[in-house]
């Protein structure tokens, strides 16, 4: 059984730790509620900061919520707990989504979110592992997180630790050559304790991926590199939960979950709108957004 301070949603079924993690019964409604709170905080904090990356933060909310409230073993009050599952945010510009999730878990006070990007805040514009509890890697320079995650996974194997490593990548980020170096190496080293999740929202700064730099055939590329590929609706809790469960059973190879998402998800005028990749909602827009997220 897990200790009480580990971060889990309360579950009606407490037969075993496994059942508790993957139970799809009552907590689903709470996941939705948690996701909504995270979304509200993302738009509020980026508005307050006057800058940031709301689009690619909003697309990743269900992925983060599923991981932190369903899948991962972790202790918000003990961020360096050696046995914790590791989450590596490779798309460091989605920092607001991670911070809001960490706050919901209790790593930091929710009120602190409003200091995002301000002088002396420990919530930097892109993730900084030296300032924020629960942040494993300093990111923001794209393409490096999967390699880093592989290093963490290899260390876990050397230490005979059972922890699992989850790395969240952007689809635009997969333009970076280093992602494919890491993909090749992860399969070569048979890192079956490593799961990559691609927040496949289809857009990058200059527009749609297919117009800027076509990634297709995307699933086939990962497969050719030696990965188990699972495609899901990245806003569906049941599909995400099932995918993570399935990944746990994969032996001898790493797993990538290609999560089909919508950039700006949850706020109608931000959805699929590249203007909100790197720009915060203004004071009027944030009011409209919060109304939609009630």
């Amino acid at each position, binding site marked *: 059984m897990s200790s009480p301070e580990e971060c889990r949603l309360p579950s009606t079924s407490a037969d075993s730790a496994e059942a508790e993690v993957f139970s799809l019964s009552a907590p689903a409604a709470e996941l939705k509620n948690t996701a909504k709170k995270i979304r509200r905080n993302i738009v509020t904090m980026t508005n307050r900061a006057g800058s940031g990356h709301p689009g690619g933060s909003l697309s990743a909310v269900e992925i983060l919520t599923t991981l932190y409230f369903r899948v991962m073993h972790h202790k918000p009050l003990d961020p360096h707990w050696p046995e914790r599952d590791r989450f590596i945010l490779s798309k460091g510009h989605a920092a607001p989504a991670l911070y809001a999730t960490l706050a919901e878990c209790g790593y930091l006070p929710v009120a602190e979110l409003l200091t995002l990007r301000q002088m002396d805040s420990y919530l930097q514009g892109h993730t*900084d*592992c*030296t300032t924020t509890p629960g942040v*494993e*890697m*300093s*990111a*923001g*320079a794209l393409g*490096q*997180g999967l*390699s*880093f*995650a*592989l*290093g*963490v*996974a*290899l*260390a*876990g194997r*050397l*230490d005979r630790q059972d922890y699992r490593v989850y790395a969240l990548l952007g689809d635009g980020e997969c333009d970076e*050559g*280093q992602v494919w*170096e*890491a993909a*090749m*190496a992860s399969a*070569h*080293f048979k890192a079956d304790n490593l799961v990559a999740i691609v927040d496949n929202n289809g857009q990058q700064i200059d527009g749609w991926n297919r117009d800027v730099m076509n990634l297709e055939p995307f699933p086939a590329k990962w497969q050719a590199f030696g990965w188990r590929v699972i495609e899901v609706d990245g806003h569906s809790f049941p599909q995400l939960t099932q995918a993570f469960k399935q990944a746990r059973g994969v032996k001898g190879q790493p797993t990538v979950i290609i999560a089909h998402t919508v950039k700006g998800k949850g706020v109608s005028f931000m959805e699929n709108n590249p203007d909100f990749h790197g720009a915060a909602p203004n004071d009027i827009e944030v009011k409209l957004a919060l109304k939609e997220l009630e």
Partner: protein
Amino acid sequence: MAQEVSLREAYGQTLLELGLENPDIVVLDADLSRSTMTHFFAQKLPERFFDCGVAEQNMISIAAGLAASGKIAFASTFAVFAPGRCFDQIRMSIAQPQSNVKIVATHGGITVGEDGSSHQSVEDLALICSLPGFTVIVPADAIETAQAVEAAAASYGPFYIRLCRPKSRLIYDQDYRFRLGRAVTLRQGKDAAIIAIGLMVKEALEAAQNLKQEGIDCRVLNMPTLKPIDEAAIIDAAETGAIVTAEEHLEHGGLGSLVAQVAARHRPVPMEMVALHGYAKSGKPDELLVRYGLTAGDIEKAVKSAIKRK
């Protein structure tokens, strides 16, 4: 002629010895393990050795992940590739979080020789010294190399150790004790001070010997730790009234620049820099040192020029 010993071999053997003692040490290479000599470690401790193939950027970030998980990660390739090819990875994954990664780069400088400019690392010290928190060491011989590697393993934080390709004459005997951040006075003198690193240390000693015959009395310092640099030793050297630096690196951003910063701040004196001014070509190491002005004779000329400006 004193015995010539490989710095790279000293690295490889020391790494293996350290690895046998300390299970936290892991080693990464990028398809050059026979050249960097990490293959000694790989043969005996294969489970802690990761050959990343020809993918240096990936290697550096994997090393950072291993270090973030409690390992002491040694990553090796040629100096031209790390930092050259991996600067952003080193910056974000090692320097910014002050990660416990030790980059040991071999084939530094132009004495790589026949491979030519693509493989001759002449900017690596400028790049790596620009990164906050890095300790940067350029050993002068095999004995200093072994001790520098031990010091890197024993101290937490990012290290860069630059080794040359050729075997080199021993400067030190087994009684030598390398001290992190400390210059070593190899010869006392009052007319000028020569501060050298790496292969240029033996050239500096030869130059001082020759100048003595002309009545010029030179102090010779080896500055194995380039960063943090031994400021006190530089201020002390400035007491001679003239400083000459000698390095197998571009004149910008290496030893000469670092010494000049300290001297300018604390005790400005005439300085000359024996260094490279551009890319070199293919050739035998000794021919290249002559062609590109990195010999004892070049140091002697620089000393006379600096003394004239006293």
